[in-house]
């Protein structure tokens, strides 16, 4: 079966938009016509951990029952009192507080009291549904009470095709689930020869990566973390430039559940990564560690949405990246501290290193706050290598250009060292070799502890 051309205009949308001239409110994903739907996916899931297709829906429905029990519906008298209060407010304040659309929508979702309605994924419902359609059968990883499960899924891009996996993780009470995702291009697509940056050169003329796309690879992942469970997700992406990567995630946490997500985005001409989390259970937490590299004419889009519903919930979003060549990146991160989430803490921090003149970086770190007993903070540092760092490196005989390249290869090198498995490491090394010739030699002997930069080694030679 072949795809028809589809455009998703409101993919990876920020919950609270800002000025349209900033062109950061949402992303546009174009699915070209004529791609085969041909998922090339391999999954390693222990037989006892293969769940039923509706495992996630059932878990969410059970969570709804528990939530309803803990949060009973207001009585008719309370509803009447609330309506009277709102009417009085409207009279006294010129029709009530003039909420923005996003503020009114947020209130409507809370009033609906539906966990299913509140559940969302980072790239958005439409794109998620499309990936699920393209993926076919869903991979369901289910861990029972107190079990420890490790699973992995590998998605390989296919030239002229869309290759996707739809995955659900349902971590039962007190269980531990570790899921490794690897999205890779084992074969060289034609676009790599014509449109990508030449081997060893990071700079490249800007190009519309979407136009050059010969393939789409992606994953759509839903995670239900039940009370006291621990879920670790590691996703590494090493696609070639002719491929569009779509990484769509949605998470739900019950009481004291902890989820960590580590994303490494090294390849793909255009990549979209979106993560939305509903920290519903008290004392549940989320840590997201994102590392990315943009070079040549690559485009990166990240969208994070963390909704703090539960008391004393915590999230910590970290993103570190390097942009070189004429690459572009947009990172939108929203921490939403919802009324009732007393004691919640949300933190986000991004560091971006800009290496070349032609790069473009957009960062939109948003905090929405409807509760006073919370702490939210965000920070961003965007810029070049500090002059004292450059001076130090120059005193060691490293020219500025070489120092800049060293920071680029360091991102890849660290990703290779932290790779979740051998297959992922091979993909990272293959990509590293293309960016910095000689990179692969660092890992020839399988010594993941090598710390010397490929470019530094090249100079030494």
């Amino acid at each position, binding site marked *: 079966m072949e795809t028809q051309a589809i455009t998703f205009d409101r993919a990876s949308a920020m919950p*609270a*938009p*800002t*000025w*349209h001239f*900033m062109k*950061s*409110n949402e992303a546009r994903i174009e699915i070209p016509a004529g791609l085969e739907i041909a998922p090339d996916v391999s999954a390693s899931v222990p037989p006892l951990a293969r769940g039923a297709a509706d495992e996630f829906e059932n878990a969410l429905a059970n969570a709804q029952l528990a939530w309803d029990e803990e949060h009973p519906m207001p009585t008719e008298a309370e509803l009447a009192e609330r309506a009277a209060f709102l009417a009085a*407010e409207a009279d*006294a*304040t*010129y*029709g*009530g*507080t*003039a*909420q*923005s*659309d*996003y*503020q*009114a929508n947020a209130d409507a979702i809370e009033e609906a009291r539906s966990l299913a309605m509140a559940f969302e994924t980072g790239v958005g419902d439409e794109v998620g549904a499309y990936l699920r359609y393209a993926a076919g059968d869903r991979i369901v990883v289910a861990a029972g009470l107190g079990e420890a499960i490790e699973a992995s899924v590998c998605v390989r891009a296919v030239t002229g095709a869309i290759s996707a996996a739809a995955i659900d993780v349902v971590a039962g009470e007190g269980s531990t689930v570790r899921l490794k995702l690897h999205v890779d291009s084992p074969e060289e697509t034609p676009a790599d020869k014509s449109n990508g940056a030449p081997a060893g050169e990071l700079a490249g003329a800007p190009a519309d990566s979407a136009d050059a796309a010969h393939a789409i690879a992606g994953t759509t992942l839903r995670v239900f973390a039940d009370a006291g469970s621990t879920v670790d997700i590691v996703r590494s992406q090493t696609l070639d430039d002719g491929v569009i990567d779509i990484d769509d995630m949605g998470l739900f946490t019950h009481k004291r559940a902890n989820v960590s997500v580590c994303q490494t985005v090294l390849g793909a001409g255009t990549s979209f990564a979106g993560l939305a989390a509903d920290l519903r259970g008290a004392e549940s937490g989320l840590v997201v560690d994102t590392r990315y590299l943009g070079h040549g004419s690559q485009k990166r889009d990240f969208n994070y949405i963390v909704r703090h519903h539960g008391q004393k919930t915590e999230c910590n979003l970290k993103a570190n990246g390097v942009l070189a060549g004429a690459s572009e990146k947009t990172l939108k991160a929203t921490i939403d*501290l919802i*009324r009732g989430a*007393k004691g919640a803490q949300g933190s986000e921090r991004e560091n*971006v290193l*800009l*290496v*070349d*003149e032609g*790069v*473009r*970086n*957009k*960062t*939109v*770190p*948003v*905090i*929405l*706050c*409807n*509760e*006073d*007993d*919370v*702490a*939210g*903070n*965000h*920070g*961003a*540092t*965007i*810029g*070049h290598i500090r002059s004292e760092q450059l001076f130090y490196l120059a005193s060691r005989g490293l020219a500025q250009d070489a120092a800049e390249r060293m920071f680029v290869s360091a991102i890849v090198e660290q990703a290779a060292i932290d790779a979740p498995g051998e297959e992922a490491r091979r993909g990272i090394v293959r990509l590293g070799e293309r960016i910095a010739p000689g990179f692969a030699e660092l890992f020839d002997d399988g010594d993941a502890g090598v710390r010397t930069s490929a470019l530094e080694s090249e100079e030494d030679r």
Partner: protein
Amino acid sequence: MAEKTRMQVADIDRSLYDFRYDDADAEKLDAGLTPDIVREISERKDEPAWMLEHRLKSLQIYNDIEMSDWGPSIDGLDMDNIVTYVKPNTEQKSDWESVPDNIKDTFDRLGIPQAERSYLAGVGAQYDSELVYHSMQETAAKMGIVYSGIEEALHGEYADLIREKFMTLIPPTDHKFAALHGAVWSGGSFVYVPKGVKLDYPLQSYFRLNAKGAGQFEHTLIIVEDDADLHFIEGCSAPKYNVANLHAGAVELFVGKRAHLRYSTIENWSKNMYNLNTKRCRCDEEGQIEWISGSFGSHVGYLYPMSILAGRKAQASFTGITFAGRGQNLDTGCKVVLAAPGTSASVETKGISKDGGIQTFRSSVVATPAAEGSRCTVSCQSLMLDDMSRSDTIPAMDIRCKNVDIGHEATIGRIGDDKVFYLMSRGVSEEEARTMIVNGFAEPISKELPLEYAVEMNNLIKLEMEGAIG
């Protein structure tokens, strides 16, 4: 443990600002917005033909542009019910004794003549759509400084200069209410500071909107030539009505090479006001703009002063505070464009929300490819005084060059119980303790204001803090 209770106290009398006079003597055009109304405004002002053309073109743009979809709702504002031009029953005067009693009394109660006598180099006072008073000290006039009504200046020696600059920083195409302003603007000030002239005392314009259901659309144009220095203060208020009023002014500032301009605003519109104001400044080489901004009133506020650093090593600083209480949705912040090498900007804002009010900090920092070696820091702190209110922070950065240093920090939270406890243990009541803490929170802004305005701001905070014990 006993459940913590929240005491609510009604807001105290805002009579300092909330008084009004009958506007029966004023001349009003029909409510709504039509080409005929626009033509009539232009005709009454005996404007040059290019201005009428500009107005009509702006009206067309207004009709064509959609309202923005990202900010507070303005559904309660029906332009068909807004009177865009209200002329008070007087011409512009240059001594207070000639101003009609009711208008003079208004400005007396707001302390404007007293401020003029005490520490200002000049005052402009606008009542509804027209300036009713304009005066500048002789010493300032002798320095070559021009401070007059902009309409008056349109007929004088600076007419060509005004035509060259008018609505070039804020074109009518910028947004719907910039277009509205272009169509129906009326009143406002023109300031020209010649090269090398430094004025030690501030100039002030005060805008009072008295008429019910009216709009105020004053235009302020300030040109500070190379090596010159000016402090300009803007104040605004209105009585409270039970229908919507609209303020859609525009402020265009041009700062020359090595020149310096400080633009201070204490905005205290009544809580039925839609404040959709636009302010923009362009700085040439090594020029400096300092914005000091306090936003307290309005039902809905959209306010983001913009600094365009177009010259090498130009600098901008923005220091702002926004206080949103019951029934208010104030969306404020700033925009910075780093458009030349070595430019720098710093933004420090404080936001406070209480009693169901919504306060949003929104900003943009854009570094163009020409901004090599530039830097910008943004610091934003928000304080929530109860769990009924809302405080959002929406900053955006777009960086298009390599050698820049851009930093952003923001925090959000509430007054720590330990701090209140400490003050109460020293014999301070809870309400006083919270007011003291909020005043301390706002101190970085109030210390930048002239003493009299800092006192006014602290009084406004005290006023807003009444009933905020929680």
